[in-house]
């Protein structure tokens, strides 16, 4: 019964929220922009830092929330704008630069406020154990909204990530759609990061998508595999950290290690299937 009283909201957070992350993970892995989530989270954090430097107080005033939103959208614009057609410079390098510069800028902005460190830490180092009912419900509501947008416009979004050439041939405005993609993705990442922290966001985005890609060429199957991996790794990580009382493991890192184990299992499964010759090489789109 302990699981239902003490751990109900962390458990629900790990069941309800990762679905959207796994979906975005498929895009992110396909586009090869693995670290974009960290960069967007850091840009949003910079927004909060600017608000704090202006005298606002996270949790009480609206300004930090507003500025984190504004900065996320600016970041989305930046990423949409830096998608080169024939990149001599990989986009990942731009993402890296944006990440370190916004992290460093946050430190500069906060160097004259006393509570800076705390504000930054709270933003980037969420802990799923401490999630509240309000946070879970609010974030779930937001995620349902974003999921609805992506469900309605799924053809466009998928074409953009998985078949850029076709999108260009059809004369779709890549910049505009990319901006919409990064804006919704940024909102998702910045709200999830406050609940679970950066390591978990990264794990939820990348591992299920990679597991899916290892085991299936079809997008729908990849998504289904990703969801299963995310649920199993998240819940077993929470259960291990709660139940292994003698070890007393912190929850977030335990979940991340479960994701590592899940990836190994999927790798072995892929080998086995390859050995029996059931997987054919193919490009899913």
């Amino acid at each position: 019964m302990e699981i239902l009283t003490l751990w109900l909201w962390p458990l629900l957070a790990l069941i309800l929220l990762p679905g959207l992350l796994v979906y975005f993970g498929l895009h992110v892995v396909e586009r090869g922009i693995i670290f974009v989530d960290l960069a967007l989270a850091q840009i949003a954090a910079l927004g909060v830092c600017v608000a704090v430097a202006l005298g606002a107080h996270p949790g009480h005033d609206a300004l930090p929330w507003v500025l984190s939103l504004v900065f996320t959208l600016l970041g989305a614009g930046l990423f949409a704008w830096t998608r080169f057609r024939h990149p001599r410079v990989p986009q990942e390098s731009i993402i890296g630069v944006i990440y370190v510069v916004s992290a460093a800028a946050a430190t500069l902005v906060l160097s004259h406020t006393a509570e800076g460190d705390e504000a930054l830490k709270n933003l980037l180092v969420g802990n799923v154990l401490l999630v509240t009912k309000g946070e879970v419900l609010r974030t779930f509501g937001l995620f349902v909204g974003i999921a609805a947008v992506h469900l309605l416009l799924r053809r466009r979004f998928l074409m953009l990530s998985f078949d850029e050439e076709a999108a260009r041939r059809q004369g779709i405005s890549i910049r505009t759609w990319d901006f919409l993609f990064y804006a919704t993705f940024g909102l998702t990442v910045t709200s999830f990061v406050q609940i679970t922290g950066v390591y978990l966001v990264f794990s939820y985005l990348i591992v299920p998508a990679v597991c899916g890609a290892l085991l299936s060429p079809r997008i729908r199957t990849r998504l289904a595999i990703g969801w299963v991996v995310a649920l199993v790794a998240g819940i077993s990580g929470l259960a291990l950290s709660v139940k292994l009382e003698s070890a007393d493991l912190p929850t977030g890192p335990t979940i991340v290690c479960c994701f590592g184990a899940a990836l190994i299992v999927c790798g072995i499964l892929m080998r086995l299937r390859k050995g029996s010759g059931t997987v054919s090489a193919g490009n899913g789109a």
Partner: protein
Amino acid sequence: MTSLLLALKVVATTPEYGAIATAIGGDQVKVTTLAKPTEDPHFVDAKPSHIVALSKADVLIEGGADLEAGWLPPLLEGARNAKINAGGPGRVRASEGIQLLDVPQVLDRSLGDLHAAGNPHFMMDPGNAKIVADHVCDVFCKLDAGSCSAYEKNRDAFNATLAAKMGEWSKALAPFQGKPVVTYHPTWRYFAARFGLVSDVYLEPKPGIPPSPPHLAEVMQKMTEQKIGVVLVEPFQSRKTAEAVAQRTGATVVDVCQFPGGLPGTGDYLALLDADVKAIASALGK
């Protein structure tokens, strides 16, 4: 001796309160401490065991001066234990009845409101340890009247040893009246006030802000001007910064700690103060 099942379950946020609870409660209480002695008490990472301990606790001892403001409230929200919620019978705010130093004159948010209540490191003055011991004993007695005489006996023994030790510590530091020391964070203000040292130069420009080059230059200039030869550093603070500053000014870096268990052989509060006083006196004597 009471069985462990009947014992009061006590949770302390930081190790010095855990040590006091053990000194007063003896075998009658089971003490769990949330923060490790080598961990920065401003930031403690939540673990499932913390929430479990809080959900079962009869008593929670916290500083009460915002030191744990960043991490205790969400843990309590997760634990849902009315006994130790604010105003509950088992909630002990250690700072009650203690005169806090460095209370901000103006509450200006640009200065941050991390510690609006004042400097929370008051346990570094052993005089305040007595106030906390009395307070803890009162709460134990209220919740477990059957063992009250045992608690009072332990409290009297603790206070007696503390008083005797206070004499020793004052004597050890008496030759260094008015001597300044550099610390990383304003942790040693109460200690300095008690024993006649001066602590107003910090490696941090502001609490919680990492040192910048101009600030460190200013610190080193002050150290040369005021002939400060001692830099105190705790396990979770940047020893590298302390060493760099000490090397350039010919000062000594001294390892100290505000928490029992943070230095070797400092299992309880009195042993910790013993070790701190000894380390600081020997460095000042050089």
